[in-house]
């Protein structure tokens, strides 16, 4: 097959340093990646409950080659492990999702969530320090009031930049099951959190109550056959949201219709292909991620083997279907045995909704150009990408003769999976999380 690099609209280069943690502990496994609305900040959450925020360097004339590199801006512990005494169960501190709020002033706000609790964090800079207090001296020791003879006005003096993160709100005790998604509403006053069976609507200012807007828990748990896997608000219509299920369906709901949106406004499902039917059909149809396009006209879903783009006006089948790694179709039983079939891959749109990206195994990730119908497989690994060199497209060969540079399906490393990726909102910069390493690739710049 032809190599598509010539036709690729984006040629990605890794930066001079690859951002990663020094020790390869399990707590460092990155569990979510998200750019903020301007793309200046990039937040990652990990299994140990930490959030690390990277900030893009400002362009400088002196060092043009360092344009736009991301450096660590702030690190904080968002969630701690908890123990639920009543159920005798641990609550993991792993950060499942991070979502940014749009920025209105100097401080940034983000939502981070683990399985049970959502937190609103404020990240602010401090580069000035007040000096010249009357009642205490520079070391902080209190001065004897009787010794003070003159009064002075404290002044602000510059200091080294300090970035501090403070928890502003904690939204707890609203979810019985594990939270899988959070989504900020376009009204910027409310957001939703979704667990396996319920979706709750919160107001940012109110932490002690939330509205339940979707509840699919059956009266008798024995009848449970379907769970919610992901949910998202429409980017422009604050009354509309979608949620996906483990049966491969998407429901679009309108909050104006009723308080409890158990009846969907639209129901998206693709009829099953009878020739592809197997015992694993349902499992591989389970949707692991759902994302609105920036335009709000389309919805993208990721199931185990494919990415699908749906037109909101057409419910009976997707508009486009892209095969991510169809060569795994013959390996489903092995993947079921080692639990890989339950891996939840995410998917992302680029800023103009023309390219979609998702991850795969062996540290591969895939990009699909919706206009040219070209696709490419790239790899996030140190060995195969020299700094500043263009990423070479990769190819998996399915049997038969294996060409040089191709890798056979049986040699794929299933422990190296790319589940989380992010695309800069306006530029061709992507962040790819490979286990505990974060790769940031940028478009070639002339």
């Amino acid at each position, binding site marked *: 097959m032809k190599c598509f690099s010539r036709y690729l609209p984006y040629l990605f280069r890794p930066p001079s340093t690859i951002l990663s943690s020094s020790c390869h502990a399990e707590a460092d496994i990155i569990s979510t990646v998200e750019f903020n609305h301007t793309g200046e900040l990039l937040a990652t959450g990990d299994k140990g409950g930490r959030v690390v925020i990277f900030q893009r360097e400002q362009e400088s004339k002196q060092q043009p080659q360092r344009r736009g590199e991301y450096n660590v801006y702030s690190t904080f512990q968002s969630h*701690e*492990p*908890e*123990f*639920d*005494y*009543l*159920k*005798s*169960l*641990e*609550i*993991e501190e792993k950060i499942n999702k991070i979502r940014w709020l749009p920025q209105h002033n100097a401080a940034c706000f983000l939502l981070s969530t683990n*399985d049970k609790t959502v937190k609103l964090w404020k990240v602010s800079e401090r580069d000035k320090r007040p000096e010249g207090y009357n009642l205490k001296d520079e070391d902080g020791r209190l001065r004897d009031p009787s010794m003070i003879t003159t009064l002075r006005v404290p002044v602000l003096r510059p200091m080294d930049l300090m970035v501090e993160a403070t928890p502003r709100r904690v939204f*707890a*005790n609203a979810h*019985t*099951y*594990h939270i899988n998604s959070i989504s900020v509403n376009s009204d910027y006053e409310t957001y939703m959190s979704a667990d*396996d*069976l319920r979706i709750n609507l919160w107001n940012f200012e109110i932490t002690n109550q939330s509205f339940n807007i979707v509840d699919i828990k059956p009266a008798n*748990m*024995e009848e*449970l*056959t*379907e*769970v919610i*896997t992901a949910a998202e608000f429409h980017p422009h219509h604050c009354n509309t949201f979608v949620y996906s299920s*483990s049966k491969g369906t998407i429901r679009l709901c309108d909050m104006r219709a009723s308080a409890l949106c158990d009846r969907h406004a639209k129901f998206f499902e693709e009829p099953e292909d009878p*020739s*592809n*039917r*197997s*015992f*694993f059909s*349902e*499992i591989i149809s*389970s949707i692991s991620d759902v994302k609105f396009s920036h335009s709000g006209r389309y919805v993208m879903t990721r199931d185990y083997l494919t990415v699908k783009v749906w037109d909101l006006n057409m419910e009976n089948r997707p508009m486009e279907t892209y095969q991510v790694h169809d060569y795994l*179709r*013959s*390996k*489903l*039983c*092995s993947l*079921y*045995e080692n*639990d890989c079939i*339950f891996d939840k891959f995410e998917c992302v749109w680029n800023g103009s909704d023309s390219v979609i990206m998702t991850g795969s195994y062996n540290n591969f990730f895939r990009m699909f150009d919706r206009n040219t119908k070209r696709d490419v497989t790239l790899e996030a690994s140190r060995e195969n990408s020299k700094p500043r060199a263009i990423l070479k497209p990769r190819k998996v060969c399915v049997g038969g003769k294996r060409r040089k540079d191709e890798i056979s399906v049986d040699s794929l490393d299933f422990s190296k999976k790319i589940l989380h990726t992010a695309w800069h909102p306006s530029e061709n910069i992507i962040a790819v999380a490979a286990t505990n390493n974060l790769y940031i690739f940028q478009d070639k710049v002339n």
Partner: protein
Amino acid sequence: MGEEEGLHQTQLLDTMFVRGLKRKCIDGEEDIEGTLAGIKAIPSYNLQRQSLLDMSLVKLQLCHMLVEPNLCRSVLIANTVRQIQEEMTQDGTWQMINTQSTGQTSLDRLVSTDILCRSSREQAEGKQVPGYSNFNKDFEDDQTQDSSETMSTASSVQAPRNLQSNVWEMENAQENRGNFQKSLDQIFETLENKSPNSVEDLFSEVDNSYYDLDTMLTGMMSNTKMGHCDGLETFSSPTTTTSNSNCKSDLNELDHIVEILVES
């Protein structure tokens, strides 16, 4: 040796479960050795389906002791099990075995199916459950080679666990759980009516087996509780907000917890 066989079996299963492969007609169980020497025959559909069923049951059964199992995964596996069972029912193989079964489950079973159904949702498919186990057993008896092979498949899935002892633990826990279940049902009925202030009254009715460390440590308690979560929401605020300790459960912790519960 067992693991190799298991791996071999899975690879054969992969070829078997390639898309669209309809099941062959049941013409008696074929031996894996095949009729012709030197030719690697694909094992019979029934055998493969049975292996998949066993694998699924094992997956449902094995649980994390301290962390809640993934509900989505459990539901998907349970749906797969149900799908296999439905197909077996249509085959008539299910009915045939059901009529042969005499009743109570025995310790010889590969998997304690009552437990595995609970791990995805509590008390699921209660009436059909004994059928699974006996079907397993009888099917194994028919296939002289199968019992070892299905065992090896199962053991290759989760190496550290000894399935037989696991089953025994669960048999033991089952009785405790039965009482516990009753107590939980009582609790949840009364929770809907009473206010959270009457916690002491509610807990005084709880069976003491709840506090049995053995039952707690087998982890089956955590699975059964998963379904009874709603009523407990009112209780979670006093406990979880005060518990900010970075704690992993150890025996001292559990003793401490038990003390608190008993005193209240």
